[in-house]
């Protein structure tokens, strides 16, 4: 049990800190849309030129080939200086990219990985369907093999950033007669492919980043299949373990900033009775409890990394982190509104970012697997309870 960094790691941290200090953009990220896309790609290009893109990706595909601890150090510094979030870059960097690294062939790696790191493309996901949410394996979007192509017909939903994405990681049913987990294929699709129709969905926080995507006889070359035909379930499970394992490390670390910001808010906001919010016992109790739980989230992240260093793949414990963090985030934003008092209803500068964050927080316990699915996974895969 130790938390010591080696002299090399300390030196690495200094370099990260210096570079971020000189390069993090001063301006805020514009709201989502074409401007958001341009901002995200420009920042990724800056990271790439600075030699900080793909910290733990292999060097031959443009990554830095560094270990998990260096990734952790990088993320901690990154979060500390308030550098831009992943936003539209999330899928390529944390899901599609790692999946292609783990399951793709050489040609796929050479074609698809470097553009992600160079800030040339945005990726999105096509997993859920209107009829296949938590029960993902019941997906029906059909792909018929014809020569060296597959022809896809069906629809996907909850695809974040679809209008602004270049590539999509898509799950399709290639063998309708096989047992349901065995007839699925993971394939790369171009978002400008003919036969696709994209409909934005307005979410409860006012955003339009979610989409329903329709496929009518969309042709995809078979060479875009990752991990083999009818093997898509296994590929997507590997991916979900990234999503629930390390992909949320930035947001776990960022949550520390969020609770500290909320404590600051409570020290400066007055309640209806004239006292500062932090002087109220009930608010102070909740703030302290959240600060404690978020401190333990950091410890859990470090314990998870230590465990991953001894094992090859992230284990199901990643589901605990995902569940814990998303539920905590909801409680933080709900408490923020309590602290804001009557100002809580203002969606502009009067109440700052909090009311929108509160509305947006509901997505955290739904996306990437609902909290209920996470609890099933923990119960069955960590504790061995029967299905």
């Amino acid at each position: 049990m130790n938390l010591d960094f080696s002299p090399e790691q300390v030196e690495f941290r200094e370099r990260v800190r210096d570079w971020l200090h000189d390069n993090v953009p001063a301006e805020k990220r514009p709201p989502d849309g074409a401007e958001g896309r341009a901002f995200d790609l420009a920042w990724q290009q800056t990271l790439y030129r600075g030699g900080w893109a793909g910290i733990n990706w292999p060097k031959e595909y443009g990554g830095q080939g560094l270990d998990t601890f260096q990734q952790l150090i990088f993320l901690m510094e990154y979060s500390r200086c308030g550098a831009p979030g992943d936003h539209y870059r999330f899928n390529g960097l944390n899901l599609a990219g790692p999946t292609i690294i783990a399951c793709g062939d050489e040609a796929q790696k050479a074609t698809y990985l470097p553009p992600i790191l160079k800030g040339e493309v945005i990726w999105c996901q096509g997993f859920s369907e209107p009829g296949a949410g938590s029960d993902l394996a019941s997906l029906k979007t059909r792909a018929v093999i014809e020569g060296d192509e597959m022809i896809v017909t069906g629809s996907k939903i909850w695809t974040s950033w679809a209008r602004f994405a270049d590539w999509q990681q898509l799950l399709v049913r290639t063998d309708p007669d096989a047992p349901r987990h065995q007839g699925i294929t993971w394939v790369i699709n171009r978002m400008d492919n003919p036969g696709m129709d994209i409909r934005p969905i307005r979410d409860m926080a006012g955003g339009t980043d979610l989409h329903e995507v329709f496929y009518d006889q969309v042709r995809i070359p078979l060479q875009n299949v990752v991990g083999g035909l009818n093997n898509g379930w296994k590929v997507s499970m590997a991916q979900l373990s990234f999503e629930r394992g390390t992909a949320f490390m930035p947001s776990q670390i960022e949550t520390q900033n969020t609770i500290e910001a909320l404590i600051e808010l409570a020290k400066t906001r007055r309640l209806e009775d004239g006292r500062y919010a932090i002087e109220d016992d009930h608010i102070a109790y909740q703030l302290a409890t959240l600060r404690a739980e978020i401190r333990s989230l950091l410890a859990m992240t470090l314990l998870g990394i230590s465990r991953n260093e001894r094992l090859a793949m992230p284990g199901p414990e990643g589901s605990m982190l995902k569940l814990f963090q998303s539920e905590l985030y909801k409680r933080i934003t709900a408490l923020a509104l309590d602290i804001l008092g009557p100002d809580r209803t203002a969606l502009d500068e009067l109440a700052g970012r909090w009311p929108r964050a509160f509305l947006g927080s509901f997505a955290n316990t739904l996306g990437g697997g609902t909290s209920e699915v996470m609890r099933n996974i923990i119960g069955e895969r960590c504790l061995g309870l029967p299905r």
Partner: protein
Amino acid sequence: MDLLPSQEQQQIVDAARHFLEGEFPLADALQLAEGESRITREHLTRIAELGWIGIGLEEAWGGVGYGLCEEALLFVELGRALLPPSILCSVLGARIAAAGSTRGDAAEMGRVTGTILSGHCKIAAAVPRTSTSASIGDVVSGEFMLYEAGDADFALMCNTGGAALVSLSALKSLTPVSCIDPTLSAATFAADAIEASAFIATAQDDLYHRGALLCAALLLGIAEATLQRSVDYAKEREQYGKPIGSFQAIKHYCADMAIRCESLRAMLYYASVKLAQGDDSGRFDVHTCKALAVNYAQLNANTAVQIHGGMGYTQEMDIHLFVKRAQVLAGLFGGERQHLRDLLAQPRPD
């Protein structure tokens, strides 16, 4: 950086768990009379022979010479086996006596240190009933709740200012209390300027935070033991023709219990390392750890009763013992509210 126990640390854990399961099966506790201690003085000397009481004490003082991390890992196992808090008092008491032996009554305290480390001296936990009225120093005053006074030689009392050993014979009128935990005896007493046998100030050795951390370790043992029992029961017990663990209502209880264990274990490791290093954030992390431990151990133990159904409500199973012990440990070395207040008052930790 590696937050997991090393191989050597894991061996300490495995050996302790093996010994405790063999020597102190919880089934035995169900046979005891109310207030009868689970560990006799003979047991205490056997435990001392294993080096557990001096595990984290410097060798120069007669200890084993491991650190706070090993001590914390051991206490998780003691908590899982529901061994009484007097062992925690022995571990801390040895530190007070050892430090006291370098002062005035050196010979006497040197002898006491030896008897504590060899398990020939039992120390009862005295908890201030109100922190404002209690004064703990070379002279002790205030009202206290005392656990395991029965055959104890000293009482240990501790607050943020320091920790004292008081000879039990110096305490005049103990008023017995029927304790919620049937494996512990309890009494209240009022001390009016009683001279302590030894006192150590926090500036010299921070036993308040050390005690809070080890108490959190005991509570983690409870959180983990009640999770394990619940999972085992949910796999075995059938209703509607299926193991109850296949129902999401039960499965999700268990999942939440597992997260509490993971969170608390991670926090215990983290806080142990930080406090042992003497880091600025060490105390913040101990406040965090104890506050979470009180909350999570209670939630897990209480949920375990619900998962065990009607049987969980009986004294034929051992679940109730965990519920009750969690209540006792909640008050030792600062309660949840106190630690939450303290952690909120601190600047942003590193």
